[in-house]
């Protein structure tokens, strides 16, 4: 088992608004902030809390597809736009589809472990509303295997991949109960997002969320087993957090209580070209989470809160089983019993998750870490939950593609 050769912390998290349909400010035909503005806002938000750019040794930025959404590559070179003090420092851009943010976190963690940095400014960003959803689907399909899958794939490539998974899951474990659990998952996500002002669904005023989410899927215009409420939306946004060593904490004047300590982590890679054989389970997620929990020396029963990768409601349900919170096929019961709600035994996605807060793909992994940091250090606003003292651990699970690239991280408030 891997051991941490030195302590690694995260602190000073910052989320921009997750912008897109649902936000009052959003209008598809009006000018909006771009990559530069989001990177700058998130980066400066974190720098402000750590005493400025001079405290930073290196920068890491996670992003999935700016080359297509924004015609922009070489994103590491946008890090110095956050602050002149970052110019001439080491900066890296990483990409792993929707797990790009998680990979950025791991890069920061590894830099601190390697002692090449005491303070790593870690950012995730994606600006996707530059194209209509029908073309965005093409771009996001890049998280699949283009040569082997795109031609035969659906117009809405990823919704269809998870719709197929939902179909298999329905077949194996029953549709009706699962369908109701998906609707509950949606309701929990929106109710959490309504408490968090930066969430894309913060302004959501729909009355009967579960009834909406029970809408029958329409395969003629979308996919067979999922409706629009089962899917995370198209989002623009960024998040940033500082990854620091103990001496880094001193440098930035931050107490350990104001930080979360990284106790375990895993990055697991599946083969993009190998088809999924057991579509009812998230095998790579399972492997990553088990490794991270093992490294932290805890079990899923010790988790006080989880940020799961619910790009689709069905992924949320399946992740419960992958994490080991319930047995295969029991995810729907676990959700319907209220365990994942904010008052439940293991509150999930307390600021809304991908469905409720939003899914600016490359930013998502970092946003998850920021939310965990906010909850475990008592810095969350109205979306704050009570963390049981016997279960003080947080877990984030960030998935790229169809369960292909996984990052799982276990956290606890600094002691």
């Amino acid at each position, binding site marked *: 088992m891997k051991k941490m050769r030195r302590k690694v912390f995260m602190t000073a998290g910052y989320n921009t608004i997750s912008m897109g349909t649902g936000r009052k400010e959003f209008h598809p035909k009006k000018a909006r902030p771009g990559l530069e503005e989001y990177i700058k806002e998130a980066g400066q938000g974190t720098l402000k809390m750590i005493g400025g750019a001079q405290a930073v040794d290196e920068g890491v930025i996670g992003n999935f597809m700016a080359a297509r959404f924004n015609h922009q590559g070489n994103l590491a070179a946008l890090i110095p736009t956050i602050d002149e003090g970052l110019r001439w420092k080491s900066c890296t851009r990483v990409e792993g589809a929707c797990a790009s943010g998680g990979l950025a976190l791991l890069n920061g963690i590894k830099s601190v472990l390697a002692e090449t940095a005491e303070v790593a400014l870690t950012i995730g960003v994606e600006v996707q509303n530059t194209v209509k959803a*029908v*073309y965005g*689907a*093409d771009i996001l399909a890049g998280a699949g295997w*283009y040569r082997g899958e*795109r031609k035969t794939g659906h*117009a809405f490539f990823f919704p269809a991949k998870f719709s197929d998974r939902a179909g298999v899951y329905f077949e194996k474990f029953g549709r009706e109960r699962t369908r109701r659990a998906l609707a509950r998952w949606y309701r929990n996500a929106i109710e959490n997002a309504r408490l968090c002002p930066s969430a894309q669904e913060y302004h959501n005023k729909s009355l009967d969320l579960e009834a909406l989410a029970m809408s029958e899927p329409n395969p003629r215009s*979308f996919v067979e087993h999922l409706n629009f409420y089962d899917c995370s939306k198209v989002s623009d946004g960024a998040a940033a957090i500082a990854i620091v060593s103990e001496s880094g904490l001193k440098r930035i004047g931050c107490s350990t209580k104001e930080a979360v300590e990284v106790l375990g982590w895993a990055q697991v890679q599946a083969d993009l070209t190998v088809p999924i054989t057991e579509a009812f389970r998230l095998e790579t997620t399972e492997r990553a989470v088990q490794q991270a929990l093992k490294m932290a020396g805890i079990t899923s029963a010790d988790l006080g809160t989880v940020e799961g990768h619910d790009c689709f409601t069905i992924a949320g349900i399946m992740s419960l089983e992958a994490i080991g919170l319930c047995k295969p096929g029991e995810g729907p019961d676990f959700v319907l019993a209220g365990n994942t709600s904010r008052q439940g035994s293991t509150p999930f996605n307390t600021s809304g998750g991908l469905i409720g807060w939003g899914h600016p793909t490359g930013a998502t992994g970092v946003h998850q870490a920021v939310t965990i940091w906010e909850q475990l250090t008592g810095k969350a606003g109205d979306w704050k939950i009570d963390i049981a003292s016997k279960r003080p651990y947080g877990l984030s699970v960030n998935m790229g593609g169809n369960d292909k690239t996984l990052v799982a991280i276990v956290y606890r408030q600094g002691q």
Partner: protein
Amino acid sequence: MTYTERLRNVSVLGAGGKMGSGIVLLTALEMCDLSQKAENRAQPFVLQAIDISHAALAGLMPYLQVQIQKVAEKNIVRLRQVYQDREDLIENSDIITQYIADVLNIVRPTTALEAAYESTMIFEAIVENIAVKTKVLSQINTNNLNSPWFFSNTSAIPIHELDEKAGLGGRILGFHFYNPPAVQKLVELISAKTTQSELLDFAGSYAKNLRKTMVPANDFAGFIGNGHFMRDFLYATSEIERLQAKATFAEAVYMINRVSQDFLLRPMGIFQLCDYVGLDVCQLILRVMSPYFSGENLHSPLLDELIAQGVRGGQFPDGSQKDGFFKYEKNRPSAIYDPKQKGYLSLADLQSRCDDSLGPLPTVFQPWKAVIALAAKDTFLQSYFSELQPLNTLGAQLAKAYGLRSREIGLQLLSQGVAQKENDVNAVLTTGFYHAYGPINNYFSEVSK
């Protein structure tokens, strides 16, 4: 000749106009879908987009491009299946681009009427002038050896007259799209007594494939849609005159327009609708209808006066509104034309005064857009008009009288034999004019009690 064979070579006359361009779009889409069926792939499909104006045709192609793209984006799930054998088309964007090219490849813009001589199907959407239509249809019929079918988009001219005067032998049908054809669900179907039954069968299939709602109207000038609209408009102009005893012309126009929109829960006021259609088009329709209804005065001196002063309404090629009764800023009325002063008077200067004169709307009021989306729309309408009924404000009185007159016109269309059923009248007004309720209703008859 099968449905598909009939649509292999089609001409649209007046293809650059707002109605013609919509008909080109819908028909080209249908032809493209047919051409992509395995059994039809070897056969060319041709749509001659004919117009006398090069400028109008120059505007047609960009319009088609934009509209086809929207259609392709909306139907991408189906189109991926259609192009599944094309290994070079992988992403949605590849498929959409190819579909646009395939539809446009069917369309041949031309100013030469001779292009219609080989067609088996002719749609006409040219000027509402019986002499011009007769001449053009007759010329094509004489030179075309295929005994083509003629679908006329006339909104007013009796089909039997076109048939007789152009010598078409019953190969003509009224197929009246609403503006804009790409959006409006309604088509009025008008068959003359001589119309051959095969045309009706074809029209049924064609309308179904285009996902249009077809409502039959009898072959009387103006049919149902304009039969109601024109009389509704003439009533509104008579109300202007009446109101001018205590209000200026501009104030009267504002108040009647507001009553016909807000108080009656319609999508736009009557004078705004006239601007949308075009004052000159309204004048033409009235001219066409007038001789057929000798007992009625279907003439508007006000329209004549405004048109003589160059006030015409209608739309720019991009769909934005030209000035008419109203001046428009960002497609919203900002001023009202005054024929005496020969200029526009700002709405801001009279709006609040006029609103005060009209009085408040019923407290349960909701704007038209919200009303049509209501699940319990009928219940809402009942309570709205029940609240309107006892009100004695100027606005309520004008609205009640207006609603009653609209009902009277609807019933007149029935008694004159223009419409076959009450439901047909209401269907035309609700689907073609997007009214929240049909004119033949009990909301105002109850009021009158």
